[in-house]
């Protein structure tokens, strides 16, 4: 067992987090991660209304008696979702952990903190982590350039972000981006993190509620098969390479990109359809360079058992080699 500030913060056995994954992090996956000793976060916006989230929280409680949390992603939209409504549901349902992502969660901090909720904010740069600490977050989850989805515009990698964040703040740190096995876990802890977050790796598990073709595609593709789209809109997303991605990049290469031109390809319902129906050439799938390590589709229990066994072997045996090399 690895005991860290993150296992202490959540009251869990393993410092492994499944953070928000749009459409994917529902009760089925989240409860499986929590039951395997880590902690899962269900993505609130997967449910169009707060009441949908309430039903899913109750479902998750039936599937696990272990801690789990809710992800709230603040999007830069003209008509924002009913964030206070989602937060009310979390409070009423006794949720203790909320992962915030996207924009600065400051406007909602009072509501969250006065209910005693522990807030973890997802960041992509040191300055955002410093800000998160200042506004009262309890931990940060920091995404390196190699991560799936939206890794920001600064392109700083896990190798640099983690130690620089460690030097800049006192809060517990969850490293994210490029992590999928025991080596990544111990490497991140060595850099100063207190736990790791995995996204891509958890989509390729038995419990992830997506079409089997999606899981197989993650197994079949390599670390070289990701692309960055929407960079021209400063809303960069790391995704699995396919024909739709090539089309988006071609539109972006013409210059003066407008979001309207990309909507037919990048809209949420397009991606949702692909996850459900498994037509891998019909939409866009967020995926990280971690695809290189994804070679199978295990259950969350098998995956976490394996990662922890690797990690413990490294700490007990591999370190002996490092030390003697320096003797």
């Amino acid at each position, binding site marked *: 067992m690895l005991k860290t500030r993150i296992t202490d913060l959540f009251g869990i056995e393993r410092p492994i987090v499944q953070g928000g994954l749009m459409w994917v992090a529902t009760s089925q996956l989240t409860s499986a991660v929590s039951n395997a000793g880590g902690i899962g976060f269900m993505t609130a916006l997967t449910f169009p209304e707060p009441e949908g989230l309430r039903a899913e929280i109750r479902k998750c409680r039936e599937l696990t008696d272990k801690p789990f949390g809710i992800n709230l992603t603040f999007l830069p939209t003209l008509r924002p979702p009913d964030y206070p409504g989602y937060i009310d549901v979390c409070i009423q349902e006794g949720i203790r952990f909320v992962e915030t992502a996207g924009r600065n969660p400051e406007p909602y901090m009072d509501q969250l903190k006065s209910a005693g909720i522990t807030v973890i904010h997802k960041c992509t740069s040191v300055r955002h982590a410093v800000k998160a600490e200042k506004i009262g977050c309890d931990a940060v989850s920091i995404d390196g350039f190699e991560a799936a989805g939206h890794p920001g515009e600064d392109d700083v*990698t*896990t190798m*640099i972000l983690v*130690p620089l964040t460690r030097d800049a703040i006192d809060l517990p740190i969850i490293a994210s981006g490029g992590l999928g096995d025991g080596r990544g876990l111990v490497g991140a802890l060595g850099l100063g993190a207190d736990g790791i977050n995995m996204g891509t790796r958890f989509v390729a598990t038995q419990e992830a509620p997506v079409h089997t073709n999606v899981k197989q595609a993650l197994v079949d593709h390599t670390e*070289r098969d990701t692309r960055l789209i929407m960079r021209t809109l400063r809303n960069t997303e790391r995704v699995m390479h396919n024909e739709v991605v090539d089309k988006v990049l071609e539109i972006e290469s013409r210059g003066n990109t407008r979001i309207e031109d990309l909507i037919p390809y990048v809209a949420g319902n397009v991606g949702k359809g692909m996850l459900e129906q498994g037509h891998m050439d019909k939409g866009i799938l967020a995926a990280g360079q971690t695809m290189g*390590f994804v070679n199978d589709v295990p259950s969350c229990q098998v995956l976490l058992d394996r990662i922890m066994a690797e990690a413990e072997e490294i700490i007990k045996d591999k*370190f002996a080699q*490092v030390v*003697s090399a*320096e003797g």
Partner: protein
Amino acid sequence: MHQNRICELLGIRYPIIQAPMNWVSGAELVAAVSNAGGLGTLGPNAGSKDKVWDVDETGERFRAQIKKIKNLTALPFGANITVGFGELLAYSKKIVDVLIEEAVPVAIVSVGRPDVYTQILTEAGIKVLHAISTARHAQKAEAAGVDAVICEGFEAGGHKGFTELTTFVLTPMVADAVRIPVVSGGGIGDARGMLAAMVLGADGIYMGTRFMATKESYSHPKVKQALVQANDVCTVSLPKDFMLARDLANNFTRKYLERKQSGASPEELGLYLSEHSQYHAQYQGDSDQAEICCGQVAGLIREIDSAGEVVKDVINNTQSCIEALKSKLSDQF
């Protein structure tokens, strides 16, 4: 006691290799790193006072630095061969000849195919370390007979492939793909980075930028100061004709990217690069309008130490990082 494969291969005490740096890593830095127990390596143009476009003169200047290194250390050291292509091959061929004539113990081969010089170097008894940026290239280098591969992550300074794979992904992928020793570079500047790289599967580490900001490096004092002041978002990745280059963000990189985006021809860009080159930054001290190859790790650099202190700090602190991790391994629950 288990022997580290890179230490065994190179005959060094600590698995720390100072990456060769154009205009920067000359005799004093190379010798200081080797004398501290790592492997110092000579970079192109280091020690020169001007740019030269003459094959023999380039080779003889390199030889003079090698002789100087030998006067400063009796320990193993290396030198860089940038293979190149077309007419540049004449330069790299001359450098290969000099390495063989001077019996340099280790060659760091970059910017080119592994099948060009590996055999001739190996037959001369020189250990060959080849720089790569994908697992597939690592396998090709292994097939060509190199002694070890150096994987350079996207965060690394200087020139590399377009694949953008980061150290956290590239290192374990390469370690799984080859049987020869693996050296990991890109983003490593202290003991935490060394520990992470070794855990990810590396046998040794490769640090450039950290050694640029040392007393012995030939970098201009203004460049060293710029590295100390740099933060986490201090670099940019510049797309060049055949490679990506990671540079310290300054007015040079801003203007280069503006020219590139407004459709400047390769000739115009080439001229701009040659008039605002590493020579102008590293030798003449124009840290604002000229190119400074450097990695994201610049954000971690806070002081200009001696190279020996950098090696010592990394080694000493690695031990305490390991102890800290071991203390997290609890048998409770």
